[in-house]
C-alpha cells in the first residue's frame, strides 16, 4: 500500500516516494501497475506541459496572453494526479491548474482564451470541470458538494480539487474536507505544497509540521507525497480514488513540490523571497529529469522521442494561438446573456443600450 491510514499520527506523514532524484525505484512494492505505453505517455505529458509553460511565459511577455500562473516544477503533481482519473471524474482546479484541465479534455486554444479573459475559455463543453478558481479555497467546499452529488447519483466517480500550501490555511479548506468526511463523499483534496504562497513560506502558514496531517482533524485519510515523483503522485491518487468510490471517504494528499517561476506573470519577483540556493536545491529534484533517467534505464525514452514531443507541442501551441485569435471578440452583451437564464428588466434595457454601442 502506498498510502497509509490514520493509525499513528507521528509516523504516518513521512513523505511517500517511489522514484528518487536519481531516477531509481526505491519502493518497488508500491510501484503502480502501468504499461510501458502509459509510462511513456506520462513522460510525454510532462515534457509537453513544460514546453507549454515556456511558450506561455514568452507569449505573455509579448502581450499575447493575459493572466498566467507558471507551472514548471509542478508537472508531476499536476499530471500524475490527473492521470489517475476517469474521464467522468470532476476536476475543481485552483488558478495554476490549467494543465490538468487540458489533459482532461480542455482544448488548448480555450486555455489561451481563459488566460486572455475571454468567456469562451471558461466553458466546460460537457467536460466535468470548472474553470480555475481565483478565490483561494472556494473550490474546496464545492468539491464536497460535487462528491456528495456523485454519491447520491450512484456514480462510481470522484471529485478532485487542487489548492496550494496557502490554500490549506483557509477556513474553506477545513470545511470542505470536514463536510466530505462527514458524508463519506468521494472527494480527493490535493494540496500542492510548493513552499510559498506568493511570498509567504509554508513555515509561516501553520504550526502543523505537514499539511497532510490536517486530515486527522477531520477524520479522513491523509498522505504526504513527493510531488516531484510522478509515480508516487499517480499511486497516491489511484489509491485515494479507489477508496473513494468504494465508499471509504475522502483523502487529503499533500504533494511536496516547487514552482520554478514567479507566482504569476503579473509582476511577481521570486528573488525577493526565495534564495538561489533553494531554487537549485529543488531543481535537482526535477520531475522530468528523474523520470527521464528512469525511462531511459528501461529503454523506453530517447532524445529523439523527446524532440518529437517538443516539436509537436510547439506546433500545437502555434495552431492553438491562431485558433484563439480567430475567436470572435467578446462583447459586453455576451456577458449580459450569461448572467441569468432570462434577462431581467434592468439587463434587458442595458442589453439594448450596449447592443447599440457595440454595433457602431
Amino acid at each position, binding site marked *: 500500500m502506498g498510502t497509509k491510514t490514520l493509525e499513528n499520527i507521528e509516523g504516518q506523514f513521512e513523505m511517500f516516494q517511489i522514484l528518487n532524484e536519481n531516477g531509481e525505484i526505491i519502493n518497488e512494492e508500491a510501484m503502480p501497475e502501468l504499461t510501458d505505453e502509459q509510462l511513456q505517455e506520462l513522460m510525454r505529458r510532462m515534457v509537453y506541459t513544460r514546453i507549454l509553460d515556456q511558450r506561455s511565459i514568452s507569449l505573455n511577455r509579448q502581450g499575447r496572453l493575459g493572466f498566467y500562473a507558471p507551472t514548471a516544477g509542478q508537472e508531476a503533481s499536476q499530471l500524475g494526479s490527473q492521470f489517475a482519473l476517469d474521464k467522468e471524474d470532476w476536476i475543481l482546479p485552483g488558478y495554476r491548474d490549467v494543465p490538468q484541465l487540458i489533459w482532461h479534455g480542455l482544448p488548448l486554444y480555450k486555455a489561451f482564451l481563459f488566460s486572455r479573459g475571454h468567456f469562451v475559455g471558461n466553458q466546460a463543453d460537457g467536460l466535468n470541470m470548472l*474553470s480555475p478558481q481565483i*478565490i483561494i479555497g472556494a473550490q474546496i*467546499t464545492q468539491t464536497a458538494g*460535487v462528491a456528495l452529488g456523485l454519491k*447520491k447519483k450512484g456514480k462510481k466517480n470522484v471529485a478532485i480539487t487542487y489548492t496550494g500550501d496557502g490554500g490549506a490555511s483557509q477556513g474553506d479548506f477545513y*470545511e470542505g474536507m*470536514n*463536510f466530505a468526511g462527514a458524508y463519506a463523499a468521494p472527494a480527493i483534496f490535493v494540496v500542492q505544497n510548493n513552499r510559498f504562497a506568493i511570498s509567504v513560506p509554508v513555515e509561516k502558514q501553520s504550526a502543523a509540521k505537514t499539511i497532510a496531517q490536517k486530515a486527522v482533524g477531520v477524520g479522513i485519510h491523509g498522505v504526504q507525497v513527493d510531488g516531484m515523483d510522478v509515480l508516487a503522485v499517480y499511486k497516491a491518487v489511484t489509491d485515494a480514488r479507489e477508496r473513494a468510490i468504494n465508499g471509504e471517504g475522502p483523502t487529503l494528499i499533500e504533494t511536496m513540490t516547487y514552482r520554478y517561476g514567479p507566482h504569476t506573470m503579473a509582476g511577481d519577483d521570486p528573488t525577493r523571497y526565495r534564495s538561489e540556493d533553494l531554487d537549485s536545491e529543488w531543481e535537482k529534484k526535477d520531475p522530468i529529469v528523474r523520470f527521464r533517467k528512469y525511462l531511459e534505464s528501461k529503454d523506453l525514452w530517447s532524445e529523439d522521442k523527446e524532440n518529437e514531443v517538443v516539436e509537436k507541442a510547439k506546433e500545437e501551441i502555434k495552431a492553438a494561438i491562431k485558433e484563439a485569435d480567430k475567436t470572435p471578440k467578446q462583447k459586453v452583451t455576451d456577458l449580459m*446573456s450569461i448572467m*441569468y437564464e432570462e434577462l431581467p428588466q434592468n439587463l434587458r434595457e442595458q442589453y439594448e443600450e450596449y447592443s447599440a454601442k457595440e454595433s457602431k
Partner: protein
Amino acid sequence: MAQMTMIQAITDAMRIELKNDENVLVFGEDVGQNGGVFRATEGLQKEFGEDRVFDTPLAESGIGGMSIGLALTGFRPVPEIQFFGFVYEVMDAISGQMARLRYRSGGSFNAPITVRSPFGGGVKTPELHADSLEGLMAQQPGLKVVIPSNPYDAKGLLISAIRDNDPVIFLEHMKLYRSFRQEVPEEEYTIEIGKADVKREGSDVTIVTYGAMVQASLKAAEELEKEGINAEVIDLRTVSPLDIDTIIASVEKTNRAIVVQEAQKQAGIAASVVAEINDRAILSLEAPVLRVTAPDTVFAFSAAEDVWLPDHTDIIEKAKTVVNF
C-alpha cells in the same frame, strides 16, 4: 383550502417540490430530525428520507459551497441558512461563487439553488439574527432576492424559486412566520418572481414596500383613509429584480410616493426604488419621493428594537409629508 401560517405555507411548498422533483434536496443546520429551529422543515425528513432532507455540519460557508457542488451534479438544492445574520460566513459562496456560476462557466453551468433564511426584527433575538441584509444581496448580479409578506405568497413564490434555474435568496421575515393565518390552497401554484402585487389601490400616494412592512403599510393606509388620504400599497415581493413597470404605473397615477423598508437607510432597496422613480417618472411627481427606514446604526440590541424599527406611525407621517408638500 386550508388556513395556514407563513411557516406552514413554506413547509408545504418544500413538501410539494420534494414530491415533484427527485433532484430537490433540503438541508442545513438542524433541518433534519429537528425540523429546523423554526420548524420550517417539520416532518420532511420523515416523509422523504435522510437522503433528500438532511442535517449539515455547522458551517455556513460549507453549506453554500456544497450547494454549488450538488447543483453541478444535477441537483436542485434548497439550503437553509439558520438566520440571515449568519450570511457573512457564506458571502463568498453566495456572491462570489453561486451568483457567478452561470457567468464564470461561460453559460456551461447554472445554479438552481434556493437559499432560504429567516430574518427581520421585532422578535427580540440576540445580535446578528434579525438584520435586513437584502440590499447586500440585491447588489449582486446573478442573484434574485425574494421576500414574501404573507402565507399565500410565500408558498407560490417558494415553489417558483425552487423551480428557477438561477440562484434565489428567499428571505422569510421571522415576525410573519406565525403572526397570522390565511387561506392557502393545498394544491401547487406559482407566483412569478419579479412581479409586485398591488395590495391596495389608491389615488393620492403610492407606498412601495415589502416584507413585514407590508402589514405596517396597510395599517397606515387604513388610518390615512380616515383622514381622507387614499394610499396605494405595492408589495414588491421580489426586491431583485425590481418590478419597475408596476411601480412606475402607480406613481404616474398618484404622482406621489414613499418607499418603506425595515432596513437601514444607507444604500439599499429603498434608495434604488427612489432612483428608478426619479429616472423614469420625475415629470409625474408632485413631491420628492421620501423613505421610511431604520436609522443607520447596526441593528438595535433587542431592548431598543421597538423604537428602532419603523412602524405604521412613521409611514403615516411620511405619507402626509409628501401629500401636503
